[in-house]
């Protein structure tokens, strides 16, 4: 195994950890174990900056999905019209369609309920551009119309340090 020697200017090391689920949900025990620790790069300071971590993540294929511009994005079909029900309930404009989840299926045979998952917004929008318009559905006397929407943001893979009261310590510039 190659041994690491820190440069004189290095004050911190950026690493990738592979966690495996060690939870026992029945006994309300939540934990994860670290299976692998991989060196990604050196840092000349000890400040916690997501931009720096993203650049380091992009240098290795296994963590490339955490690189700059990456996040968790969903392409999903949403309602374009309100759908009041006779029982007093309703489905409102902007809600996810329960009739189109088969469109989210991927090669693995999974049909995610929240939409098809992408790493970048550009990839999600490119996939949506190739999809046909979602079919309308008659719901009672109302014709429900649908459209595609891309949701999600880059920040949802960033986990900032939290303090006891639940407030977040945001990085500089936020």
């Amino acid at each position, binding site marked *: 195994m190659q041994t690491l020697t820190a440069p004189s200017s290095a004050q911190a090391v950026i690493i990738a950890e592979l966690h495996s689920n060690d939870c026992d949900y029945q006994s309300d025990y939540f934990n994860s174990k670290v299976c692998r620790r*991989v060196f990604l790069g050196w840092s000349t300071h000890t400040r916690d900056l997501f931009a720096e971590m993203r650049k*380091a993540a992009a240098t290795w294929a296994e963590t490339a999905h955490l690189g700059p511009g990456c996040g968790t994005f969903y392409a999903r079909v949403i309602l374009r019209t309100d759908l009041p029900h006779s029982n007093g309930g309703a489905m409102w404009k902007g809600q996810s369609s329960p009739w189109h989840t088969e469109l989210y299926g991927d090669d693995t045979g999974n049909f995610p309920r929240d939409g098809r998952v992408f790493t970048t917004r550009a990839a999600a929008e490119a996939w949506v551009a190739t999809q046909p318009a979602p079919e309308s559905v008659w719901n009672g006397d109302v014709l429900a119309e649908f459209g595609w929407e891309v949701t999600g943001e880059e920040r949802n893979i960033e986990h900032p340090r939290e303090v006891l009261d639940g407030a977040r310590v945001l990085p500089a510039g936020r």
Partner: protein
Amino acid sequence: MGRGFYLQAGSTYSGWRVCKESLQYARGELLAKLEVPAPPVVAELPAAPPADAPTPEPAARLEERADRGSLWLRFAQRPADATLFALKGAGWRWSRPAMAWYHQLTPANRVFAEQFTGVTTVEETDAPAPAEETSSALPVATVLPFEARR
């Protein structure tokens, strides 16, 4: 309490997590346990030029300025982000006016730069070079991937 400051997609109980550890507290123990992936490719290998083509510009050039006590590294084109991240992590800094990366002139930094780029050092002096050496003062160097140089 939070569990630190990290990047992770999906569940926080499984998958890859990217975080930062200070070397101040666990230098030797931490580094000894880390796996080291294959280093990033510095630059793509250029396609073989035709025999009558003009000499291509080198992918990277290393200059040594003894009068200023600095090493300078110039790339013909912007390298990949992985290359720049590795340079920055090794303590090199970007000079925007000079459009080059620089570091102190030390044996360790020189060895790093030569291994990193695979180019030979070119010493730059203020005095004009002799006429017969001018043409060969800047050797054409090809930057090879790390794997190819092992």
